[in-house]
């Protein structure tokens, strides 16, 4: 830990520029990323990150020709605008070509995408040879980026910072302007078309923006890791919010924190890990790589801890449901025993043996809960229901026997096959469902086995009251 403090305290102005640039690039990518993820087109981001290479190389070639023709002055060098125009053109072209291959070649969409993007990328690699002598395009830089070189030899704000910041501003503006159109074409393109909002045009706009954003970002982070910036914060955000605006905002926050965290890890973690292992020379790691790694870790954290869909939350709901089922089974068992031998209790050991559901720990926790709630009490003869417990138990047994009657009416099941299904379903029949079943069967007094079906409690019993909030649990099982 002290090692971390030492390392992080060596943070300089350069580190700030690196982190800020990374954060701006990640945030700029996250905006189109959200829409790609929601459109289930994440793979297109992957494809575009490769095909824009052709756009950039093509832009260099085109400006070279135009200069030779004398249409633009050689003094301009190769304007950056040309690079973006090239990327945008190729971005839209990839999309159009993919559709064409899909329709004309009759191959499925991801195969069409695979054909188009590898072909265009290969064409880009080929053309790089043609311009390599006149212009410096370093394939390593294209693939892995060079965010560490962000402000070397520059005055004021580094260019990469400005470019990515500008791209973020453009993306935010476009998203705000076309928010409705993006939402409806993403959710329901057919409806959008009937409303006169051309879903295909909006799709091309998204492709153009994605290509431009990738071009801005990949000088810093490279064409491979830029995919992480495009997809990972967006995918994480969809786990954490239930509104589109919420997803966008959370994706932006995650993108920025992933980038800053990534750079902090890049300058601290390698020395901390590799120093003790006997590699004192390993001082830092690729910042872009660590940014992608940090984003990935944020995704894992969200997957585990997300409020409703996270693993922890699901397990917790599952456990709560399991406990409730065991509690109700205990109540039901005691109620039936009391029916047969009124007034007698049930020794705890016998009860544990008779319970079909729940493991030993669950059952003990359930029993403890029932006692502390005052549903059961321990007497000389064993466990017995209190008045309050009896009322809950009556409700459960009513649900069980009503369901058995319902099954007997509608299912061709033998009499001894009714109990098991009812054991499962009894926990989910709240008072209104019980009412519906009873009405349909015209208030049957006895179940198919001849046992009497208890009357519905006049006031809502505790089990019925529980059943309403527990409805959510039902969906997760």
């Amino acid at each position, binding site marked *: 830990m002290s090692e971390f403090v030492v390392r992080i305290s060596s943070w300089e102005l350069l580190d700030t520029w690196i982190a800020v640039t990374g954060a701006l690039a990640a945030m700029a990518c996250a905006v189109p990323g959200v829409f790609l993820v*929601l459109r*289930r087109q994440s793979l297109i981001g992957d494809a575009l990150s490769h095909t824009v290479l052709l756009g950039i190389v093509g832009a260099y070639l085109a400006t070279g020709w135009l200069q030779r023709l004398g249409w633009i002055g050689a003094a301009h060098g190769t304007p950056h605008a040309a690079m973006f125009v090239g990327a945008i053109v190729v971005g839209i072209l990839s999309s159009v070509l993919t559709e064409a291959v899909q329709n004309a070649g*009759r191959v499925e969409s991801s195969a069409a995408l695979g054909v188009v993007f590898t072909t265009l990328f290969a064409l880009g690699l080929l053309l790089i040879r043609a311009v390599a002598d006149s212009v410096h395009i370093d394939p390593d830089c294209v693939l892995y980026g060079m965010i560490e070189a962000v402000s070397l030899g520059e005055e004021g704000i580094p260019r990469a910072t400005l470019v990515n910041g500008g791209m973020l501003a453009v993306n935010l503006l476009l998203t705000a*302007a*076309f*928010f*409705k*159109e993006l*939402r*409806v074409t*993403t*959710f*329901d393109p*057919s*409806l*959008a*078309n*009937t*409303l*006169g*909002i051309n879903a295909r045009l909006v799709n091309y706009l998204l492709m153009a923006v994605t290509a431009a954003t990738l071009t801005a970002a990949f000088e810093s982070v490279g064409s491979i890791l830029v995919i992480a910036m495009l997809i990972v914060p967006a995918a994480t955000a*969809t786990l954490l*919010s*239930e*509104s*589109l605006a*919420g*997803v966008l905002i959370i994706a932006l926050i995650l993108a920025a924190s992933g980038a800053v965290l990534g750079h902090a890890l890049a300058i601290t973690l390698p020395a901390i890990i590799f120093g003790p292992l006997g590699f004192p020379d390993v001082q830092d790691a690729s910042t872009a790589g660590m940014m992608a790694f940090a984003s990935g870790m944020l995704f894992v954290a969200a997957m585990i801890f997300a409020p409703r869909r996270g693993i922890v939350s699901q397990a917790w709901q599952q456990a709560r449901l399991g406990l409730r089922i065991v509690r109700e089974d205990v109540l039901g068992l005691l109620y039936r025993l009391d029916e047969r031998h009124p007034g007698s209790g049930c020794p705890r050991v016998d009860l544990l043996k008779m319970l079909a559901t729940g493991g030993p720990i669950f059952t003990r926790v359930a029993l403890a809960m029932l006692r502390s709630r005052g549903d059961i009490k321990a007497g000389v003869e064993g466990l017995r229901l209190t008045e309050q417990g009896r009322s809950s138990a009556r409700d459960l047994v009513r649900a069980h026997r009503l369901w058995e009657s319902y099954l007997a009416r509608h299912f061709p099941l033998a009499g001894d096959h009714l109990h098991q299904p009812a054991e499962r379903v009894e926990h989910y029949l709240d008072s209104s469902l019980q009412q519906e079943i009873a009405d349909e069967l015209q208030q049957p007094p006895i179940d198919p086995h001849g046992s009497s079906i208890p009357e519905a409690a006049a006031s809502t019993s505790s089990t019925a009251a529980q059943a309403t909030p527990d409805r959510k649990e039902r*969906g997760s099982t």
Partner: protein
Amino acid sequence: MPQWVADRGTTLWSHHAMKSFGTRSFMPSPPVPPAPQPVATGAEHPQAPLSIHDMTVAYHRRPVLWDVDYDAPFGKLVAVVGPNGAGKSTLIKAVLELVPRASGQVHFFGQPYRKVRERVAYVPQRSSVDWDFPVSALQVVAMGLYRRIGWFLPVTKKWKVKALEALERVGMADYAQRQISQLSGGQQQRVFLARALAQDADLYLMDEPFAGVDASTERAIVSVLWDLRKSGKTALVVHHDLQTVPEYFDHVLLLNMRLVAAGPTSDVFTPDNLRATYGGQLALLAQVGHKMKLGGET
């Protein structure tokens, strides 16, 4: 001739009888399609809510819907009925230009579609969208208003009130703020219906709104349909449950790769017509379609 036919021929029938009856006599006779009826179709009412003239829809040159002529009547509920693969959804998508038409003209209220978009509302199949999408029921309904709100402008209070009113009409106002994945299938279908209602159109095209919904949703949808009719609107509804057709709908359009019959339910929804609709596709149509797909090659 297969062995068993010959055996039966020698044991049960004389060879002579065998020849004169042929093997076909062993099979039940196929349903005889009724002669084409001069129903009131054929684009004779150019002002009709929907007027289809000689529309053919093809996928990769193979027609899936052949030469449909149809005029929808004003202020009626029309069931679009036919077996799987009959082209019911295709019919609706083709008139809305969601899939390309190979031939034919379509007019709504005597106008081309692009001039009267706002008078036509579409309810797609529920399974056509991703219900995990981060959007609330109210926001989905508000989508029906996007055209009227206009480009660049946000969904303001006034529009949200309109969307909420539409949700109320399908009994879903309490669920306005719910994320759509938390709704049951029937509730999701009602949200889709509410979205179309919010459009306040004169013609509603619905693709299987009753598919997989619970009884209370079915009642809610039917009562909405009847309300629409009462206020003079027209609805074409792709419908699967033949039993409820006479109760719910005034008109039917029977479809099986072609229009088999169309008109008032009492005239058209007959056992003969249903047999013609469901009694297998016309074998010749399928053969010709296949040839067209191959482009005349053999």
